[in-house]
């Protein structure tokens, strides 16, 4: 399930520390130089392509400059969340830097689990904190504190094979409705190529993400807003919720990819790269991989905003970000890493060093990237619409009614949502597989969501 990649350049380092040691011994100077020399941090991150890229560049770009060894631990999204919550929430000291998202950052900050990065970020001129896209910065803040620095940020949109649609004589609107997208998917669905790839794997951040935006735009919500920071009545038994879930399940059954109940972001990436799916509604960051220099479908894609039904916009907002736990042994060293990984310099040089080229640089976090001519050229197909989608993301009012918790689009910003969303999507995923009926899934889901009614968040 998880692998440890060691990103240190061992040979010269050992020699250097040995030298330092002997110097300290002979001159009898206190050990600060030695401590400097042997700095090492543990970083837990999710195993998506952009993170693997930065890990591969760390020894040459970071360790060589600073002398800090970085031990990466790659985890699956769901596993990462468990480990991070356990480590950060229960006061473990396993990691110096953890990767979290927009769901966790403000909540963990509110709980006092994370170091406020505002002082670090504003005192550090080279970091240029004002370069960070405001919506992203807001999403990672709570009560004036910045609790995580964005590594890449995304909205959601539709990616489609322009060549396939053109051949079928279909034109995709730039701001389609879900009915239009579903129609197109059913029309172009064929034996060799699924009409659309959608997530079906259980997990509030897997199936729960895109389905959450559909729930919003269909006029449904998980809970009503309760009085005094509590969770109100569960709304899973409402007809709009059932309509949204049935829409998703039916579309997957009619025009979805193979093995839908087991697919998430990475599986759909592969389906698209293998030309086994003609459309995909998912994170905007996916375009970076589909348009990479080594992608077989580079240049064949078109993009449209997240489909809507009753609301004006439905795209989500998310940022995979780096945070420093409150009890990290050496937050200053951890910040040195965070500032490098999320700062403007990495974005300025990574494109020339990566196999996938400039298109695969982590997107969505800084305005300076979008002003970089090399990036503009490589990401011409999707850069503008990514920015447009992120600006359009309805973070203040994602649906038709107020909901409990901190701001969130594809998730409800209450801690209870992690558990409810995951167990509920297990039910919906089983309905996608045909193991149980949608009605059974929804009634189980309603029971799960009702368990936390009236709880404080």
């Amino acid at each position, binding site marked *: 399930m998880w692998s440890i990649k060691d990103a240190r350049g061992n040979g010269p380092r050992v020699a250097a520390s040995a030298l330092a040691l002997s110097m300290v011994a002979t001159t009898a100077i206190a050990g600060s130089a030695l401590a400097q020399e042997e700095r090492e941090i543990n970083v837990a991150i999710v195993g998506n392509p952009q993170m693997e890229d930065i890990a591969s560049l760390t020894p040459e770009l970071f360790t060589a400059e600073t002398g800090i060894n970085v031990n990466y631990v790659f985890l699956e999204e769901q596993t990462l969340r468990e480990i991070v919550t356990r480590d950060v929430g229960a006061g473990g000291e396993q990691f110096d830097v953890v990767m979290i998202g927009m769901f966790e950052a403000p909540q963990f900050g509110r709980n006092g689990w994370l170091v406020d990065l505002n002082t670090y970020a504003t005192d550090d001129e080279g970091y240029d904190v004002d370069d960070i896209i405001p919506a992203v910065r807001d999403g990672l803040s709570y009560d004036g504190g910045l609790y995580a620095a964005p590594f890449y940020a995304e909205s959601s949109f539709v990616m489609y094979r322009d060549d396939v649609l053109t051949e079928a004589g279909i034109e995709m609107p730039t701001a389609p409705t879900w009915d239009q997208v579903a129609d197109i998917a059913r029309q172009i669905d064929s034996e060799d190529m699924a009409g659309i790839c959608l997530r079906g794997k259980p997990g509030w951040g897997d199936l729960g993400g895109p389905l959450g935006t559909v729930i919003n735009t269909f006029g449904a919500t998980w809970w009503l807003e309760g009085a005094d920071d509590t969770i109100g009545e569960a709304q899973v038994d409402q007809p709009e919720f059932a309509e949204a879930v049935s829409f998703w399940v039916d579309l997957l059954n009619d025009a979805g990819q193979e093995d839908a109940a087991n697919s998430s972001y990475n599986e759909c990436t592969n389906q698209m790269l293998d030309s086994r799916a003609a459309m995909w509604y998912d994170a905007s960051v996916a375009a970076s991989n589909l348009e990479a220099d080594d992608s077989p479908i580079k240049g064949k894609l078109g993009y449209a905003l997240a489909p809507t039904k009753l609301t004006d916009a439905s795209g989500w907002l998310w940022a995979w970000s780096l945070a420093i736990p409150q009890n990290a042994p050496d937050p200053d060293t951890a910040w040195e890493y965070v500032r490098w990984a999320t700062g403007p310099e990495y974005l300025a040089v990574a494109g020339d060093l990566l196999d996938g080229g400039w298109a695969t640089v982590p997107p969505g976090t800084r305005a300076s990237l979008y002003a970089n001519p090399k990036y503009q050229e490589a990401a011409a197909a999707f850069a503008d619409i990514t920015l447009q989608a992120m600006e359009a993301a309805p973070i203040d009012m994602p649906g038709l009614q107020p909901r409990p918790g901190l701001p969130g689009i594809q998730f409800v910003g209450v801690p209870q949502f992690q558990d409810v969303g995951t167990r509920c999507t297990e*039910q919906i995923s089983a309905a996608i597989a045909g193991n149980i009926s949608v009605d059974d899934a929804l009634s189980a889901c309603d029971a799960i969501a009702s368990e936390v009614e009236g709880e404080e968040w």
Partner: protein
Amino acid sequence: MTANADPMGPDPDAERAAAIKKFQRRDKWRRRLPLLPALLFTIVVTQVPFLFNIWFSLLDWKIVPPRGPDFVGLENYTEGYSNQFFHEAIIVSVGMTTAAVLLSLALGLGLALLLDRQFFGRGIARTLLITPFLIMPVVAGLLWKNQIFSSSFGVLNAIVESVGMDAVPFVERYPFWSIVVVLVWQWSPFMMLIILAGLQSQPTDILEAARVDRASKFGIFSQITLPMLRPYMELGIVLGAIYLLQVFDQIDVMTGGGPGSTNVPYFVYQRSIGGGWDFGQAAAYSILVVIASIIIATFALRVLSSLFQRQEPA
């Protein structure tokens, strides 16, 4: 056991008797002493955590959102007792354990009978048949999920598609039976080994006598071999049930929970560190499970052994 003094011997001298008693007591302790570290260790690693667990089960204690710990008495138990998903998990646990134990016992018996014969390459066959039991549960789960059941890369689906049918996402569509298949695959060798030991300890003279008496092959099997295997099969069932009730790895890597595959251990994991972060509630569930398994195990063992005893030949 050594007896340094004879305590039964009549002794008029009371002092002497007291001295002997004292010596005996010291002797007993001297003999226990080497055992004490192990005993203490066992108590520390099993019973102390259990006491903590009982204490936790009386608390309202969550990490997400941070709450407690506050003493709430038996509230966690009453809530847990009436939770529909806990009931479903119990049904899955009982069903999965029963199905996997019985199927692997049947398969193990069949394999053991085959291996009991003399044939060329028996050693190799035996080693190959034992292998699944030696594979790590996580690896077995992933292997079956990705290389056998998967609708994209699975061998099984390649066969299904080659006869012109649509690929079936087995794990997602039939989570319960997919997991049972993996468990049976892993546990049949275990049953086979135990039963094979029973078969090879059969006294050959009885079998010979039966053959001389012209007993049919089936008669020999059902009247002599099977009853003789009874204690071995009982052992296999008991050990298999104990281990299979705790199945977690295969479920975690194959389905990650869900209808038909969340058993009690997985459910308790989800309520605690697996996303629920409700330590009080999870502790209460686990204690309910301990109580239930003690009752069931006692009851089931009695039924089982009386059932087998009735079949014993005259």
